[in-house]
């Protein structure tokens, strides 16, 4: 049970002077149940890639298999595929069109052939799982705030009960609080409802925190594919691509370079905190006196990371 890309190549406007090859010979397998992060700078082909996954774009070469079947076969039901592989575009709030929030979310399920009543049941479930309150349901989508619009749009895809949920930079244009809320909601959907997630993002921190697998796109090719920890070891190469590892990776490398025995691959604030505290403890016990200077240096940092970790935990409950 997976989405599989075999030698997929895609060229925009082939045969003209404007031809651009956006994807070059991509081979990729996305098993069900994964939380996959995709990173790459602007123009690296990540948006083109995800539009292949639900048959919005037909590859110029190569094939895409969903559960082992080629989705571009003559008799393949691509509408059904699109309801199983839900895609939320960047700035999804720009797709809202109905008179009220509930009707807009009903659009997807009704296209699947549900009656208005059944669709409303699905819509209410979806809106609840993105955390939009009942009092907004009858409002015009255009009266909502940016974050609420975004959640309405995500609910619009979620209401179709997809097995895969693909999100293209769902946090673009949101403040830090709105960003954490959306991402926590997505992590919750992954955990509680078992939906496979593909998250396209610019933020290394977000990917490090949520994704279990990370793909780095560069010039239309997969540059790295592995766990975030593995990928972030190549932080110098990432920089050469115009990307960067999470800030924690830099701090840990710096600390390690100055002689503190920390885990250089720690990429989230939480991991870094544990590792620094452990390293400090280790340093303190055998050589009490010498560790003082190092401890002084690290103290404000671990205090800050604790505060940040506490803050994130606090927002998760919101």
């Amino acid at each position, binding site marked *: 049970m997976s989405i599989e890309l075999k030698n997929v190549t895609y060229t925009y406007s082939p045969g003209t002077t404007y031809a651009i090859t956006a994807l070059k010979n991509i081979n990729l397998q996305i098993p069900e149940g994964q939380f996959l992060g995709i990173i790459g700078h602007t123009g690296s082909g990540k948006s083109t890639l995800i539009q292949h996954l639900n048959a919005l774009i037909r590859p110029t070469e190569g094939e895409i298999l969903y559960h082992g079947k080629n989705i571009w076969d003559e008799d393949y039901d691509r509408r059904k595929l699109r309801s199983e592989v839900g895609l939320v575009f960047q700035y999804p709030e720009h797709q809202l069109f109905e008179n009220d929030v509930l009707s807009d979310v009903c659009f*997807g399920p009704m*296209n699947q052939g549900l009656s208005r009543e059944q669709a409303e049941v699905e819509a209410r479930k979806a809106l609840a799982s993105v955390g939009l309150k009942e009092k907004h349901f009858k409002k015009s989508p*255009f009266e909502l705030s940016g974050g609420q619009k975004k959640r309405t749009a995500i609910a619009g895809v979620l209401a179709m009960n997809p097995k895969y949920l693909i999100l293209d930079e769902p946090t673009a244009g949101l403040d830090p609080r709105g960003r954490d809320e959306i991402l926590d909601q997505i992590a919750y959907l992954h955990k509680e409802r078992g939906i496979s997630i593909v998250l396209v993002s610019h933020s290394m921190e977000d990917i490090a925190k949520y994704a279990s697998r990370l793909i780095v796109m560069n010039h239309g090719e997969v540059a790295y594919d592995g766990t975030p920890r593995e990928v972030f070891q190549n932080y110098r190469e990432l920089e050469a691509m115009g990307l960067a590892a999470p800030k924690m990776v830099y701090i840990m490398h710096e600390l390690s370079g100055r002689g503190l025995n920390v885990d250089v691959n720690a990429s989230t604030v939480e991991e870094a905190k544990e590792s620094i505290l452990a390293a400090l403890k280790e340093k303190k016990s055998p050589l009490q006196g010498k560790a003082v200077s190092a401890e002084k240096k690290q103290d404000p940092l671990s205090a800050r990371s604790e505060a940040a970790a506490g803050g994130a935990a606090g927002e998760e409950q919101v």
Partner: protein
Amino acid sequence: MIRDITVGQYYPAESVLHGLDPRTKLFGVLVFIISVFVFRTFPGYLVATIFLVGMIALCKVPPSFIFRGLKPILFILALTMVFNVLLTPGEILWQWKFLRITREGLVLAAKMAIRLVYLVIGSSILTLTTTPNQLTSGMERAFRPLNRLHVPVHEVAMMMSIALRFIPILLEETDKIMKAQIARGADFETGNIIQKAKNMVPLLVPLFISAFRRANDLAMAMEARCYHGGDERTQMKPLVYSAKDRIAYLILLAYLAAAILFRITGW
């Protein structure tokens, strides 16, 4: 899907025609259009053909690109030819009941076809070698005398260039919204006309909203930079004629003179 439509159909290349002043090219197209109507005989059309082939050779645009512009007029072309062939009175060559083909009809149809095809090719050479921005600034300069008559030349030119500038943006936006709605199971292809029109709502509402939002942003940005219309406004790249343009004008005038000469001598 929608990205494949070329709008304004500018073809980037480095050729003599690309480098000419847009006013020269506008004048050139005008002269060519006039000549196509002034020539009446086949030797005359031969001169026009030589001129046109020369231009195609000069502009460095692949001919397949130039002839692509003919596709939309094929139907009109066929229709006028059929009517001209069948309905012109004269020396009858072939008759079946009320349908008849005359010698005069064939000649007239051929001339009509040549005129139509030449007009389209001539003007597409202009749009293929001139960016929309150059074109509007050329028109703005050429029509400036109309300011005396209180025609808001600058404003009209500005509106034209903004409209042209926004076509690709709106096309891209349409493509994006369309895909987003298809991802939610929308269907833009099947159904009868009423069903199809209804299915357009999820596309049109967001598109209009986005167009208004963009217009609003643009107006704000222009006002923030103190835009206040045409009076005393200078251009960043003022149009200046070069030696090439002067030569082009001479060639065009010679060509126009030849056309008039052909007409007067009745060739």
